[in-house]
């Protein structure tokens, strides 16, 4: 992952809201807390965030409302101009783009899905999905063909002529997803895409989303306030609070080693056995004597429960998806997680 340069790279990004944020940020002494800044009459939407998103990775930004997660993603796409720091997309500083270049970037590289869908009420499903194509001047026939293709992809075939208000919430969000995919973006931003949906539909849409992602392999920044959703989808999770990132790590590591008390509050209630994978818990081989059949490193501890209980080895070899042994798992430690006894 670290071999290729990151798609999005943010360095010390600040976004302040207030009367004259630029000059305030310049004169602001280091180490000022969120509350200090607020006392000065400014709101820190994003506070000194440095984060990178690798190609093909799914980064989930998790936080409660007002934590700055939506603001951060809007800085990535320059829907908000940042107050300080740099954001590079494919190595290009996006604050240096002029209006024309920014429009080109959005027309060719970025797609975004919104919490309340952001559909244009006067356009049919087909015209909504074809909207970004129309804006960049593609001809009518081409854009119709491409739009029909994405509509089929999200499973809305036969609803092309409907208007948004004639669809259910889940269907409307499928339109939103189709629209964001129409231009075949490299980077896909999703701002709480499933929060406005019923729990059952939400689950269904998450599965659908995972299916699409497996097929398309986009670089994704996904925002949610739902920790379970984050655990379910993420390659890495960044947990935000008061505009700052508290911890950014894989789900396994966040659950096993929460960096701060705030993060620990989220992980407390989680059934760790369903989150932690064998490979995440495994230790380096380091000359341990290994015997017997290896277990699948990609399985969660919960999925391995039967093996862990029945096996009587102290150390279990862990193999990756090619069958090569990459580490060892202490059975005792795994059982502790399974029984919630750590």
């Amino acid at each position, binding site marked *: 992952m670290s071999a290729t340069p990151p798609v999005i790279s943010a360095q010390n990004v600040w976004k302040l809201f207030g009367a004259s944020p630029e000059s305030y940020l310049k004169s602001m002494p280091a180490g000022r807390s969120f509350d200090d800044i607020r006392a000065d009459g400014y709101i820190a939407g994003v506070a000194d965030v440095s984060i990178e998103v690798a190609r093909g990775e799914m980064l989930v930004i998790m936080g409660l409302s007002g934590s700055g997660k939506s603001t951060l993603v*809007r800085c990535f*796409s320059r*829907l908000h101009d940042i107050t300080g720091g740099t954001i590079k997309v494919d190595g290009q500083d996006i604050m240096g783009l002029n209006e024309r270049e920014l*429009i*080109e970037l*959005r*027309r*060719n590289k*970025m*797609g*975004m899905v*919104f*919490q*309340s*869908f*952001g*559909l*244009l*009420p*006067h*356009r*049919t499903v087909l015209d909504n999905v074809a*909207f*970004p194509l*129309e*804006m*960049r001047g593609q001809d009518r026939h081409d854009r119709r063909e491409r739009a029909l293709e994405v509509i089929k992809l999200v499973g809305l075939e*036969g609803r*092309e*002529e*409907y*208007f948004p*208000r*004639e669809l259910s919430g889940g269907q409307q969000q499928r339109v*939103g997803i189709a*629209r*964001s995919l129409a231009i075949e973006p490299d980077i896909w*931003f999703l701002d709480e895409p499933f929060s406005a949906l019923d729990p059952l539909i939400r689950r269904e849409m998450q599965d659908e989303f995972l299916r699409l992602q497996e097929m398309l392999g986009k670089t994704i920044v996904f925002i949610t306030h739902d920790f379970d959703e984050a655990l379910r989808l993420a390659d890495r999770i960044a947990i935000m609070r008061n505009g700052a990132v508290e911890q950014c790590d894989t789900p396994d590591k966040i659950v096993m080693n929460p960096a701060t008390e705030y993060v620990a509050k989220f992980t407390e209630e989680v059934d760790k056995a369903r989150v932690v994978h064998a490979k995440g818990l495994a230790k380096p081989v380091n000359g341990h004597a290994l015997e017997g059949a290896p277990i699948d490193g990609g399985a969660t501890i919960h999925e391995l429960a039967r093996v862990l209980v029945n096996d009587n080895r102290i150390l279990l070899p862990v193999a990756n998806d090619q069958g090569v042994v990459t580490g060892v798992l202490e059975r005792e430690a795994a059982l502790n997680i399974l029984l919630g006894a750590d």
Partner: protein
Amino acid sequence: MATLSTDIPDTSSKTWSRGRILTVLLVTAFALILAKAVGILPDWLNRIPETMIPPTAQVLDAVFSFIQNDLGLIHVTRFIAEGPLEFLLDTSANLLEGKRRWPHLGPIPWSAIAAVAGVVGYAVGGWRLAALGAGTFIWTAAIGQWKIAMQTMSVIVVAAPLAFLLGLVLGIAAWKHRGFERMLKPILSVLQTLPFFTYLLPAVIFFKVGPTAGAVATITFAIPPMILMTTLGLKKVSPEVVEAGQMSGCTRWQMLRHVYVPAARTEILVGVNQVIMLCLAMVVLTAFIGMPGLGAKLLAMMGSFKLGRSFEIGVTIVLLAVTLDRMSKAWVVKQPVHFERGTPWWKRHQISLIGLGLFVGFILIAQIFPILAEVGRKQHLSQGKEIDVAIKSVLAIDAIKGTTEWLRWFLNVKVLIPFRNTLLAIPTPAFILMVVAFAYWVGGRKPGIYAAIFFTIVAFSGWWDRSVITLYTVISAVALATMIGIPLGVVAARSSRWSKNILLACDTAQTFPSFIYLIPAIMLFGVNDVAVVFSILIFAAVPLIRYTIIGLSSVPPEMTEAADMSGSTRRQKLFSVQFPLALPTMAVGFNQAIMFAFFMVIIAAFIGTQDLGQELQRTLAGTELGKNFVLGLNVSLMALTFDMAISSWAEQRKKRLGLD
């Protein structure tokens, strides 16, 4: 109390407290009145001496004549009037009423227009609107008013689209540039309170007498709400929709064209509805500058006390108003519905095709049956004389005659005239102080200061007595309207069925051009002060009833339920729960009632009043633009004083109650 006052920072020591300011204002006012009563008040404190009144009208006249002649604005406006605008008006006049101008095609047979109206009605709102649309035009033709109705319509079809376009463009500009909006706002509020006579005279002077002047006045009158609705709609577009547009790579123009304007569709169409209704209201009033049409006919008929014909023309105007209003409102709520895939072209455009077919069909049939093209002089069904006799005989019944005559006598002798004389007897400075005290008490500091400035200007305009008479008419009519309207609203709000029906009636009544309200007033009371007050009263009672019902029924049900469960009686519930929560909304109605009253009192000049309206109407005959402006501004400033005080109160109150 003692402990409380130590907690609250005591400002009265530094600045004057509210109560103290009010006391000082009122005590000074009463001292002045007392001084006059005793006879020790010097004359210059009673009324501002003639010598001190600046020659505002003359100065304005000089300014206007400079702009008009020396700067050559008249050439620009005359060019517009004689060029594009006159061309459009001539075209519409040819098509609708058969005026001998290009394209020499008209007049279109009434049956073809009625058919199209029916189809349009069906398209936007189904069979009921189809019947209303077709029925209105059939009635107009059958009653023998087709030609005058089309004279009115031919101005509306030109003025409404132009007002829409100008309003849309200005609205977008105001939304884009905050500076422009800030500049526009005060101009719009003056424009909205300026009496319509003030629109008329400049239009006549700058755009020559005739349809062009009428159209210009109409357009100017109809633009402000379009601007406001456009700006409001654009501001309300959901941020996510805007961001979706940005992320789709829209340029600025694409954002406006494809995202903002379509997303603000509802508000923009509400603006369209208001433009149409104001156009109709104004076109009818252009009768005062001699424009032919329904208004002129109505004016003539009322002038010669032909109640039957007046009544029939009134019905036509009301039908037109209701048709235009219902259709444009149905268009607001109409949402696009999809067609199944593979629907053939003719089916997608079925309704337009039927409309076109009927239009052409009726034109052809009318060639064979001339009665479908034009209802002749002897053929129409007008019952003017019979209705006239009927109305007059009903009014002559002793019981009715006795009642109206007693009412007239009572109101005139016991209420109106004493009240007017009292107001006129108050010395000018005392009057201003009392108004300021009222504005300060109701609205706070800012409205108080504006009240002082505005009424001082009025005092120095040289038309003080007439302004006071105008104000007296407004106050008495609104007071009577409140006594009738609020109890009615309260009773109606008790049952949801009643409130629905009455709200519908109020909405319909509000679409009538104000002129209509004069008809029943003249019928009942003849031509005098009581008729004036009565016409204003019914006009102003409509918003009062409407907002009382809206305010009471929008009280959250959990609050009334809480009151019920606390064991309150109906009366207790009304006074301690419903009224306090509904008052801000009711204040909006009260404010509207006052604005309507100011509007109506000027129109009522036609009946014969002694106020500003009468003078304004007189200026129309001449070219005294300066005087016309001074009079118009006086009305506007008085109206604005009340508007500012009451809306500021309603806003503060709403904020304190945590409503929106």
